[in-house]
């Protein structure tokens, strides 16, 4: 067969598509440490959670668990169900962190809602403050991480976290917590919990991205953080959060 210019274009074009698809795939699946197209200084990460969108399905908890190999009985993220009755203390539950959702609530005469929780990625983090060796830290792009090869497992940070988001990993015997799926967000993916949320109750936000619609939302709408009096500069914002939530 004659090799024509058109033929070459066809073949070349297909090869190019295949090559770029393959490269994208390889980058996404992460066979090795990604190349540094990611600039730390260009990002400042956080999250927005909309209580009125959360249906308590527990997809986020399962997704996180599978993505990050979270040990059973410990939680990087979890969902709480609140039942708020007038004049009484709220009744709260989180069966196995809502890994398998909740047993249906039939009582519909009171206020009830779901609250997803995770590490608040505090910019002024008390857990980082107390670490004796520098094993936990706030990354330059705003994610609180643990250096698994440096952590002593003293658990001072677990005590210092006001939100209860840290735990001691039973196998590595170091402290573990939500990493905001750092290995994903630095590659252009979203977190596992946001990916799996069917209603968009959880959304990743990059405060340094001027085109981020969630950032734009946060600038203009009423939101709050958990335990603001702790002054931790938490970066997980809640929309439609009830005052009874602890």
């Amino acid at each position, binding site marked *: 067969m004659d090799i024509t210019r058109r033929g070459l274009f066809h073949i070349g074009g297909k090869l190019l598509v295949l090559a770029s698809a393959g490269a994208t795939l390889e980058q996404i699946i992460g066979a090795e*440490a990604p190349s540094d197209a990611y600039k730390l200084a260009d990002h400042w990460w956080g999250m927005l959670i909309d209580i009125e969108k959360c249906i308590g399905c527990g997809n986020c908890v399962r997704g996180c668990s599978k993505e990050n190999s979270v040990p059973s009985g410990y939680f990087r993220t979890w969902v709480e169900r609140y039942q708020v009755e007038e004049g009484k203390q709220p009744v709260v539950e989180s069966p196995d962190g809502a890994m398998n959702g*909740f047993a249906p609530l039939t009582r519909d005469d009171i206020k009830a809602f779901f609250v997803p929780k995770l590490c608040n990625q505090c910019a002024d983090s008390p857990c980082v403050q107390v670490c004796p060796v520098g*094993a936990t*830290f706030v990354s330059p792009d705003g994610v609180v*991480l643990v250096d698994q090869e440096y952590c002593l497992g003293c658990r001072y940070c677990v005590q210092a976290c006001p939100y209860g988001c840290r735990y001691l990993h039973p196998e590595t015997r170091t402290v573990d917590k939500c990493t905001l799926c750092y290995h994903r967000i630095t590659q252009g993916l979203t977190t596992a919990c946001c990916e*799996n949320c069917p209603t968009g109750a959880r959304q990743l936000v990059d405060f340094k991205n001027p085109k981020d619609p969630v950032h734009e939302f946060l600038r203009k709408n009423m939101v709050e953080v958990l335990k603001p009096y702790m002054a931790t500069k938490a970066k997980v914002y809640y929309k439609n959060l009830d005052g009874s939530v602890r």
Partner: protein
Amino acid sequence: MRRWFQDSGHLIRPALVLLAAAGVFLLVRAAVVPKDFGKYGHYRPGALDLVRQHPVAYAGQETCAMCHDEQVTARKAGKHAHVACEACHGPLAAHANDPSIQPKLPDVADLCRRCHEKDAAKPSWFPQVATAEHSGGAKCTDCHQPHNPHL
């Protein structure tokens, strides 16, 4: 003066022991602590790369769309438009990397019920039913097409 030295000379010894220990400590420190410790803050910068090396389990919708555009199109037209593929199908990065790895679909009843079982805490705008009464024992997929479920 010389006499004072004679009488207090022994005090030099514990001081020397301390200094020697301090010297050993500084040597160990220089050998063991990574040179770039403190570059971004009080931690090893290598830790950032360590975290980033964790393998990805969920490929993300855009990857699924590369091959399965038929299902994506069907989904986009319906109520599940904003539900990611892997939210129901589970983590599929392994499958995307090697399509011969066949994903296993979770049990339909459990899957649908997790979101759509009636619960007073769920927001009222969300479609939810008491499944025991709703289907009379039939499977959800007998009537609803998962990618475009609205009837």
